[in-house]
């Protein structure tokens, strides 16, 4: 971008696309064979997933004694990964719901992929509490259902139970919201595949059948669109407080305990800001890869990357503010244990993790203030990876450093992750990327109907 500014806004979609071109551009990756890049990334992701599957099979068969946990550090990698993945998911809902309510029209090109990211991230997150139960086949015991044990009901006062409701509601509503947005696009695909349904290969015919079934008989009727728009607004309005509640409830897992370092009232807003920060970091990572792999540069433009970088700066600022507040309150409380917990965080045996966290979350994103860096996609990509790493370490620091040295020095302990835990973490990344890559191949990764709406092509702009 030159130093001279145009008074006109940058177009949301580049390359002067017509309405029909939008359909064919976005459907193109679904209609051609997968490229070498896709197969290479898919092979890597799927291998990671298989590694994770082996690890999970082994630990479920043997027991969670295969982890590095001990009596003092009872939560570590598992819950760190859980909170990390839930946080990643939050950016998807933020893009699809928050930005929709705020009428940020640039969201249209990235909302579909970001919502898909949410769903896959919540799936990854769900694995960890499940395997942490040790006997995952009894997972349904966390639900209140009439049982033969009394019936003995679950404890509705427990934040862990709130988690069950929050995460399952979040997953359900996100999936419904995502599917609702997909219906018009599935109809567009159905109509495209209808052209080849008679003469095409078996694969094409099967896909035509699937698109026909899933598009629910959509025909673009103005009456249906009227209801659709109303429902979309309602779903966005429901998803917005929902996403805030989900990470608040996750933070209650910690905040309602009496452990120094966890027992703070700042946790809910701090967790929500951190979730958005890490989520936008992951959206940037994914979008920068995806726009190259499936050639969507006209749709996911530098303007989108720029806008997301600004959100990263803003949410990163909130996270930094929360770090400072925590330290100040620990000092100002005058409580010996509280002060010790924070001194131990920064300078104790896990001080290295704290310093990685502060460097990645507070200092590195400040580079994004510079326009030149925001325009350099490689630099943005590297910084987004920093954010991902930093936010993973934030959860690790909160969980492990608070637990490993609490009130009683005789019970202090150290924690080292076992290979099984590391393999499970790698496996969760494998699941995430495998699911995302498959999504790019079978569903339109950009919302076709919404992009058409922001194109301005359908309007004549005072031509006559």
């Amino acid at each position: 971008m030159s130093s001279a500014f145009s008074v006109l806004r940058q177009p949301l979609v580049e390359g002067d696309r017509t309405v029909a071109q939008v359909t064919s551009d976005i459907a193109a990756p679904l209609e051609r064979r997968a490229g070498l890049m896709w197969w290479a990334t898919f092979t890597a992701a799927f291998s990671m997933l298989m590694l994770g599957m082996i690890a999970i099979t082994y630990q479920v068969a043997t027991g969670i004694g295969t982890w590095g946990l001990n009596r003092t550090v009872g939560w570590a990698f598992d819950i760190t990964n859980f909170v990390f993945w839930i946080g990643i998911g939050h950016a998807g809902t933020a893009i699809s719901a928050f930005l929709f309510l705020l009428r940020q029209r640039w969201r249209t090109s990235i909302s579909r992929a970001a919502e898909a990211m949410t769903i896959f991230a919540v799936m990854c997150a769900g694995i960890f509490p499940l395997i942490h139960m040790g006997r995952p086949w009894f997972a349904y015991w966390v639900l209140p259902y009439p049982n033969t044990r009394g019936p003995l009901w679950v404890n509705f006062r427990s934040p862990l139970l709130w988690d069950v409701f929050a995460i399952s509601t979040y997953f359900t509503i996100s999936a419904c919201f995502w599917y609702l947005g997909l219906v018009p696009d599935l109809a567009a695909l159905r109509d495209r595949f209808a052209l080849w349904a008679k003469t095409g290969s078996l694969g094409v015919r099967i896909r035509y059948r699937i698109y026909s079934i899933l598009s629910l008989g959509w025909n673009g009727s103005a009456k249906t669109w009227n209801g659709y728009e109303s429902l979309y607004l309602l779903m966005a309005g429901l998803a917005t407080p929902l996403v805030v509640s989900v990470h608040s409830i996750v933070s209650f897992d910690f905040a309602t305990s009496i452990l120094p370092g966890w027992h703070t009232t700042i946790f809910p807003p701090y967790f929500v800001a951190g979730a958005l920060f890490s989520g936008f970091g992951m959206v940037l990572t994914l979008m920068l890869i995806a726009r190259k792999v499936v050639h969507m540069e006209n749709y996911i433009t530098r303007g989108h990357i720029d806008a997301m970088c600004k959100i990263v700066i803003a949410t990163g600022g909130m996270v930094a503010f929360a770090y400072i507040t925590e330290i100040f309150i620990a000092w100002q409380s005058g409580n010996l244990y509280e002060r010790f917990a924070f001194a131990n965080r920064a300078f104790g045996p896990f001080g290295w993790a704290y310093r990685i966290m502060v460097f990645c979350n507070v200092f590195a994103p400040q580079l994004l203030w510079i326009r030149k860096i925001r325009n350099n996609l490689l630099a943005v990509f590297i910084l987004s990876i920093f954010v991902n790493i930093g936010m993973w370490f934030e959860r690790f620091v909160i969980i492990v450093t608070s637990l490993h040295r609490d009130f009683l020095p005789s019970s202090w302990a150290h924690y080292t992750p076992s290979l099984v835990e590391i393999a499970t973490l790698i496996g969760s990344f494998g699941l995430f990327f495998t699911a995302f890559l498959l999504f790019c191949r079978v569903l339109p990764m950009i919302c076709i109907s919404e992009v058409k709406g922001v194109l301005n092509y359908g309007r004549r702009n005072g031509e006559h």
Partner: protein
Amino acid sequence: MSRQLFIAAFKHEDDLLHAVADLRQAGYVFKDAYTPYPVHGLPEAMGIRPSRLPWVCFLCGLTGGLLALIGQYYLSAVEWPINVGGKPWNSSPAFIPITFELTVLSAGLGSLAAFLWRYKLIPGRQPPVLETGANDDQFVLAIPEHNATFNPQELKLICNRHHAIRTEQRIEPDGQAQSIPAQQRGAA
């Protein structure tokens, strides 16, 4: 009973909107319009009533929330009270998170179900498609024969004035329009 149906396709949403405004002034009513994306101002121009889904959403949310609150109270305080850390049987503040989640869940699922039911969106249903192009790049208007004022010549004139790319007359059997096979669309 079969009746006539007049179809006009446009390339731009503005043309559709202007044609709708003129036709409405001329006293026509509309069967429906088919567009690739929601056109702003079209429901108002066509005289489509605002959706009542917000009411469904509100009532579903209210029901879900109340049931969650009452259910938690009943299970924790009446059915089998358990002393957890000396907290009261009816720990209503602690019941709020789940109440909130179930409010959102039932409001979301309820309004989605109402939407699908109201607009007859059923998995695998064959769309009563008038124009497959409407999911791609055409803005199609359908006007049924409704009374003596129905005049195809006048309709054609008005639509052509607004740059209609195609107009045609069809017979609508049993109130359901015939669908145009997708293969013919390319020629249009």
